[in-house]
Every structure is written in C-alpha cells, then in structure tokens.
C-alpha cells in the first residue's frame, strides 16, 4: 500500500533538549493512524514538523509524495487540527473559515458554501455568524476541527481531536473520523487509548522522543493470536494443564484468579475459529468452567504501558 506520509530519520532539538530522535515510519494511504505517547513524548512536535510549523533538526517528512518544506504544493490536499491554536476573537467564525477556504483556492461563494458545509458536519451550523470569543471551549474545538474538514483534504492530522469535548461530542467526532476510513488518510494524536484502539487501524507509539512501536492495530494488540478469558470461578490447575496441552495454544498466562491469557500458535483466521472451539470445549465440556468474557487481543493500554514503563496520562480520555 502506498504511503500518504513518510517520516524518515526525523529529529528535533530545542536547544540542548532533544524532543524527537531518529523517528521513522510511514502512514499507509487511506488508514486511520494513531500517534500515541505520554505527555512530552513528542507527538505535537512531530505533528508541528509535519505541518511545517517547526523545522526539523534532522531527517525529512514527505506528505503525499511532497517534502513538507514545499508546503504550497500541498495546498488544499492536506489539513490539520493544531493543538491550542486560537481563532481571531471578535470575528464571526464563518468569516475566518471563508478566509481559510479562499486560501485553499475557492472563490468567495464556494468558500462560504464549503465553510457552512464544514460547520454543519461538526454540528455547528447554527453558530456560523457568532463571534469566536462567544463560543465555549468545546464549540471552539469543533470549529477548529471544522477548518480541517474544509474542502476535501486527502490527509488530515488531528492533534487531540476529542480533548476537552463532552462524551456526546467526542463520540460525534469519532463517528466522523470513522466515516472517513478508506476515503482519506487521518492521523490522530490522542491520550485516549481506548479511542485510538477503537478508531485506528495502525498506530505508532512515541516515548521520550523515540519511536517505540509502529504497526497495525492487530499486531500491536496481538488480536490475531492473543485471547483474554475471564471465568465465573477460578481456573483449576487441571483445566490450565488441559488448555496448555491444546495444539493451538502456545502458552497460558494467569493474570488473576479467574483471568488468564492464552497465546495462540496459529497462522490464519480459520485456525483461530478452530482454536476458540477447542478452548470452549475444554473449559465448558471437560471442566465445567463457563467463560464470562472472551476477548481477542490485549488492550492497547496494556501494550502502551509495557512500552512506556507505566506512563499513561489518561486524564483527557473522553
């Protein structure tokens, strides 16, 4: 699959502090790609370089096949929701959006239509004429998001798109992003690991300025080969031994009296179905143990915690 964004050996120093160190990865075309990391990991710095706000100390970023230093060649094809960027207070949001759309190459009438369309997309059609200063934080966040939707960008960078939004609005934004799958490439930075796991098909994890992992979500969460099971009563030693004896099971890890993980030794989806049947048969049929829940893959949070050594600021989860 072609890459919408390619980051090669990217580094950024702020004086003596190295914010990014030799980061390289690619964002596949049409993917919803999550960029994860604890506070200070370098997510916003990476986004800022990719958007041309900051210059890289080393390495390069290519967006849609163009070096981001030639940003004008990408006009209208590439958009971003920057973190904490302010709109002009005292000016109706529609006028500011019209200006952005006109810079994207639209005539005044087209720009106005695009701005209204984008505002309606984020559920703010009724505040078009309102002054930016008169809007709540959540509304402003959605207006900022709306400017990223102007026109039809092929690639969007969304820096913390749901931070500060109430659950209903956050869900609305997630639905919006989900609806873009396959139509455009979206790169999302977020602290909300559940949101990233739910939305993204690929993710990269940054930690202290370094890329620690970059893979498809299936690979990151081992969803193809890991099964998490919770029983209604404790797992007996005999049942554990029988499970481990199954040919599709590579290992068993107890994570609690009634919880355990099975690492499967399989290669295809069909084999997985067979493996799950065998597991259920062993538990229910042989040992009369009923699984209360059976989940495929580890949570992204767990993987994240393994990589970052337990650093997870989930405060902005919504």
């Amino acid at each position, binding site marked *: 699959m072609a890459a919408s964004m390619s980051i090669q050996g990217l580094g950024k120093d702020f004086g003596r502090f190295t914010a990014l160190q030799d980061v390289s990865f690619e964002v596949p075309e049409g993917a919803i790609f999550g960029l994860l990391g604890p506070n200070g990991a370098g997510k916003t710095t990476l986004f*800022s370089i990719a*958007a*041309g*706000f*900051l*210059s890289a100390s080393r390495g390069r970023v290519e967006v849609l096949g163009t070096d981001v230093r*030639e*940003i*004008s060649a*990408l*006009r*209208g094809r*590439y*958009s*971003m929701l*920057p973190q*904490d*960027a*302010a*709109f*002009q*207070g*005292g*000016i109706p949001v529609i006028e*500011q959006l019209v*200006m*952005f759309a*006109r*810079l*994207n190459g639209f005539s005044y009438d087209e720009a106005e239509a695009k701005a209204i369309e984008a505002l309606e997309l984020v559920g703010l059609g009724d505040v078009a004429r309102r002054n930016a200063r008169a809007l709540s934080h959540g509304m402003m966040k959605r207006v900022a998001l709306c*400017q990223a939707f102007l026109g039809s960008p092929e690639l969007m960078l969304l820096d913390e798109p749901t931070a500060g939004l109430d659950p209903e609005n956050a869900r609305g934004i997630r639905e919006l992003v989900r609806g873009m799958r396959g139509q455009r490439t979206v790169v999302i930075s977020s602290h909300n690991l559940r949101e990233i796991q739910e939305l993204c098909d690929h993710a990269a994890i940054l930690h202290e300025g370094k890329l620690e992992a970059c893979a498809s979500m299936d690979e990151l969460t081992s969803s193809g080969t890991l099964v998490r099971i919770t029983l209604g009563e404790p797992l007996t030693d005999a049942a554990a031994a029988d499970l481990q004896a199954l040919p599709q099971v590579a290992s068993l890890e107890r994570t609690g009296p009634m919880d355990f993980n099975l690492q499967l030794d399989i290669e295809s989806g069909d084999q997985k179905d067979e493996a799950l049947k065998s597991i259920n048969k062993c538990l229910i049929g042989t040992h009369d143990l009923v699984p209360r829940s059976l989940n495929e893959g580890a949570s992204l949070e767990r993987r994240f915690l393994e990589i970052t050594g337990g650093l997870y600021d989930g405060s902005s989860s919504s």
Partner: protein
Amino acid sequence: MVSGLHLRHIRLVGSYWMRFSLRTGGGLMAIFLVLFSGLMVAHLFITPVEGLIDRASMDGHTQGEAADDIARVAESEAIVNAVKWITGQDQAEVEYLLREQPALLSVIWLMLLLLFPFVTSIGSFNQTAGDIGNRGLRYLLLRTERSNIYLGRTLGTLYFSTASLILLMILVLLYVGLKLNLYSFGALMGSGVQGFLALLFLSLPYITLCGWVSSLFDSAFASLAICLGLGGAPIIAISAIDANTHADLEWLERLLPWGWKYELLSGDIGTRLTAYAVMLGFTLLFLLLGMRHFNRRDL
C-alpha cells in the same frame, strides 16, 4: 526566501488582516492614534495662527492683510532660525519651507515627521507576534507560504497606515483651507501632497522594521516595547546628539530612516528623490530581514 509568492494570497491575507484588525479594535486604535497625534500637532500650530487672525480682524485688517501679517511672522528671522535649529536644516531649505511653501503646513509636516516613527510603531508592532504567541498563524501555514503571510500582513499594515494618513491629511487641509483661508487651493494641495509623501515614505521603513521586530517575538507586548524603543528612542536621542552641537555624530542618525526625514520635504527635487530612495532601501532591507527570519523560525 521568496519562493512560492502568490499575489492573490498576499492580497487576501492583507485585506482580511486589515478587516479583522478594524473589527477587533486594534486597527481602530491605530487610526485613532494617527488622527489624534496628527490633529494635536496641527492644533498646536493652528491655534496661535487663529489668534493672530482674530487680532488682525480686531485691528480692522482684511483677510488678505491678515494673511500677509502671518506670512511676515512666519518668515521672520526668529522663526526661520528656530526651525533651522530644531531641524538642523540649512538656511535655503528652511526658507523654502517657510517662504515658498505654506509656512503653517510646513511646520505641521516637520513636527509630524518628528512624531511619525513613534506613531507608526504603535500601529505596526503586532503584525505577527500576537498570532505567533496564540498560534493563530497555524491555520494559515498549511494554506499558503510563509512569505505570503508575512507580505500580506505588511501590506495590510500599509493599507492601514496609508488610509489613516490620507484621513489625517484631508482633515488638516480642510481645516486650514476652510477655517483659516490663508493659502490658495494650489498651494494647499502642493504642500499637502508633499507632506503626505514625506510622511508615507517615512512610515514605510518603520512598518517593515516593526514587522521584523514582530516576527522575532512570541509576545505582542515584547514587540510593542522594542518597536516603541526603535520608534521613540531617536526622539530622545536627538536632544543628546544634536546635529548643531555634535555635527560629527550626525552619521549615527543616518543609520536609521529617522536621520533622513527632513530631506523628504526638501525643496531640491534631487535631494527629495534621494530621500525617497533611501526610505525605500531601508523598507526593503527590513522587509527582507523580517521575511527571512519569519520563514526560518519555528511557528
């Protein structure tokens, strides 16, 4: 440094910058300041002249006789020497301004030339600094080249300055023309155009100097402080480095546009054109330095 220049974008950024500034109050403040300072200066000189006209009228003099009385005062050695001392200009230049040009307007333009760097600085200090600080520029950065944003903001500020200046000129000329009725229409217009060009050309380098300063900071306040220093410091320094007593240090003044200001009103067309060219040179220099920094800095 100037790759990706897009005239439509420069005009768009400039016109929106001007409109938004007007509506958010910053622009209105700048216009108010230009008008206020300009009209205060005009008032300072017009009031005594009005007094002279009233006195001449009480003495039974006609309008024409009153005008002659005022011309005699303006052309007196005392006034010529005073203007010569203040401006450091030679005798011929001062006589041109006071005797060949409408003296009242010349004195107003000279005083405005003293103040205008300061006034221009207040109207130009926030071309980019505030929006760098609040990151508002980031919405523009993906849509156009940095050079277009920088030049657009400069252009918007220039629109403002020019509009304020035109308004000020119209008010001063109308007042002097209609109320005092001292000078012919041709003399008023001639002096008005010369004064307008002098003030406009003096504003240009200060607009781009402030644009450069503005691009150096993330804070509008820091930019304001430095711009006021650059615009206002020469006014203070002029008392310390007075060309009449420290002629050998006159070259110091020439390092800034400030040092060339009176040549902008010169009676010698060659000198005046040279002064215009120097102002344009400073304008271009500051513009390029500012744009170079803006294009390279982290935003």
